[in-house]
């Protein structure tokens, strides 16, 4: 008992250690982002997981590059990412930007307090790429159907990729922005349409998921109710048994036996009722199938339904033939050909059969002998 308890505690401790965070020398697997907050703060950004929560990157080695405070000094340290992709802790952000826009302490770009986003990826360049791609995907949402030929669609994808690459790597930013603006003006209607289409799709997906969830819930409720009923029934039986033992003066053993039998019968009825739906349907299917069976009579099995083997008597196979081509096979008594199931007799039979197959076949009418 105590040893079990101890090992359990160890397991729990281990589990909690993993949950709390990681030390630097751990494998990279433990550095993967962990769900940390449900982030409904004013901060935007971050990447959502399927349940709609934002996963925030979190590691024991976090250190604010501005105030050098780390997780050891401040266990509640939370690093956020600026629009110029530099990290700093919440207290630094409060300190620097509460009084209005101020330059980034690292690159001097003017930043606002509201433009900080939670960090999802360990590598900030990934963070940047994700947000750039998200922005681009919102603007450039044309589909294959919007293009007459594949070639044009591919060109379009190429252009999108160029723009994305420029934005990610800070190449010709003003020119690229101009291109985006021009594109936006040209394709406003189509973009809007596609956005609506995407939203409708997402909505449909969500509704489907919701319906599934409801159904699961319903099934679970049903099951729970059935269990409760069963428990009540069992309780009732026991009470009845005790009552009857009290009241009647019949043989106690016999009373107990009878009540046991009753209980068993009722339990059987319950299980039958529970699986009735399934049983009923499969019984019905079987009945249908059987009814169908009586309409056309089944006939006894006839192995082959043609007279091919009537030709068998045209030749007799000999034990062996002089056949240099197959010598390798015949010599290989135990080897690979034998184990693979290859038989040289089949080759001989084929040759013989081909030789006699045409005998006694009447020539086709109207064909000139060549």
């Amino acid at each position, binding site marked *: 008992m105590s040893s079990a308890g101890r090992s359990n505690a160890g397991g729990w401790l281990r589990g909690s250690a993993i949950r709390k965070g990681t030390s630097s020398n751990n494998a990279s697997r433990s550095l993967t982002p962990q769900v940390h907050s449900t*982030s*409904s703060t004013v*901060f*935007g*950004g*971050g*990447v*959502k997981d*399927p349940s*709609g929560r*934002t996963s925030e990157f979190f590691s024991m080695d976090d250190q604010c590059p501005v105030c050098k405070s780390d997780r050891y000094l401040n266990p509640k340290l939370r690093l956020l990412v600026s629009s110029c992709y530099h990290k700093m802790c919440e207290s630094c952000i409060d300190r620097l930007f509460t009084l209005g826009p101020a330059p980034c302490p690292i690159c001097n770009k003017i930043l606002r307090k509201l433009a900080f*986003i939670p960090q999802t990826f360990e590598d900030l360049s990934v963070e940047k790429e*994700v*947000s750039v*791609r*998200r922005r*681009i*995907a*919102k603007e450039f*949402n044309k589909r294959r159907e919007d293009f007459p030929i594949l070639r044009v669609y591919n060109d379009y994808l190429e252009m999108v990729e160029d723009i994305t690459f420029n934005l990610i790597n800070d190449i010709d930013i003003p020119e690229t922005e101009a291109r985006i603006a021009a594109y936006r003006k040209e394709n406003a209607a189509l973009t809007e349409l596609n956005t609506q289409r*995407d939203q409708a799709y*997402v909505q449909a*997906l969500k509704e489907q998921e919701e319906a599934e969830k409801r159904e699961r819930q319903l099934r679970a409720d049903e099951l729970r109710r059935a269990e409760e009923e069963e428990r009540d029934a069992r309780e009732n039986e026991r009470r009845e048994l005790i009552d009857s033992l009290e009241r009647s003066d019949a043989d106690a053993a016999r009373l107990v036996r009878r009540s046991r039998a009753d209980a068993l019968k009722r339990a059987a009825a319950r299980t039958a009722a529970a699986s009735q739906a399934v049983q009923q349907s*499969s019984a019905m*299917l079987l009945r249908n*199938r*059987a009814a*169908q*069976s009586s*309409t*056309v*009579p*089944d*006939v*006894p*099995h006839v*192995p*082959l*339904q043609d007279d*091919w083997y009537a030709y068998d008597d045209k030749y007799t196979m000999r034990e062996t033939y002089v*056949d240099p*081509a*197959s010598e*390798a*096979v015949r010599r290989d008594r*135990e*080897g*690979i*050909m*034998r*184990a*693979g*199931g*290859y*038989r*040289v007799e*089949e*080759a001989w*039979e*084929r040759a013989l059969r081909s030789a006699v197959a045409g005998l006694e076949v009447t020539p086709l009418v109207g064909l000139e002998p060549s």
Partner: protein
Amino acid sequence: MDVVEKANAARQKRWTKDRKVGEGTYAVVYQGREAATGRKVAIKKIKVGQFKDGLDMSAVREVKYLKELAHQNVIALLDVFSSKTNLNLVLEFLDTDLEMIIKDRSLVFLPADIKSWMAMTFRGLEFCHRNFVLHRDLKPNNLLIASDGQLKLADFGLARDFADPGYKMTCQVITRWYRPPELLFGARYYSTAVDIWSVGCIFAELMLRTPYLPGESDMDQLKTTFRALGTPTEEDWPGHTKLPDYVPVGQFPKTPLRELFTAATADTLNLLGKCLIYEPRKRISAKEALSHPYFFALPYPSHPSKLPKTASQLAASRMAEEAETNVDMNGPGPAVKAAPPNRLKRKMSGDDIGRSVARKLDFSQPAAA
């Protein structure tokens, strides 16, 4: 226009394409009709363009063997013609395949149904083997079912003729779950027994309603096989340790088939056991199998017209009846065939696929909640 082209054009005119019903790597399958009679056909358009050195091998094989084989349990190749650069095979149109029937949970199989399917499979296979053709890709998916219930062997893309001494054959054939151990061990000289093993696996699948030996890799396939049937000894299968790719995969004890197939009769298990013998030379042949007591015992095999049908098949046959009220009921009738949507491999259910895609990071969504 020379004579050949003229003949080809004349052939092409005999058939019309109606709609696309499926697409594989090598071919697109269309539903069509014979212009003269209105009979439904399947037209398999082989994509020629992508093969640098001529025609795709499997198309050549399919034409080569189907042209020779005419049997009620082998799919009929009605015609071949070319259009532009494509090769078109005109095949019988068949409703469904055995895999769809096995997967359709609303269908109940009687032992007699399984017997009937097995008899038809063995008959078709016996016909191939007697003509010295190995099918080499038997699986439920390639056993098509006609509207009158007849089962037909299809997809001869991997078939080849056998019994020519001294020619090596490839061991990379037959879908993994239905591949016999001698091929897994890399045998380059084999025979009809490889097809019989596949039929044995299909037989078991018909009873279990789930694949019998679903290996995840070639190695795992051997393990799965041996786990089910016991590791073969030198006595069971002489010489198997000398096969090219032989590797010991561990010792598993032999368990009687009875343990898995609790409801099967002794005859059934006897035939199944004979299809799944390790030593290929001892494995039963298609001809012997057809004379096995299993087929003669009661119940008699179901009449093909009474075999379970999938819902789509029922709808199709009803439509056919309505469309042609004066059909000759004794004739072969409007043979129908629908290529299953994906003939290449099994898939998880469509829902799962759709969802897993939708749950990927979606950049087009607004950022924060």
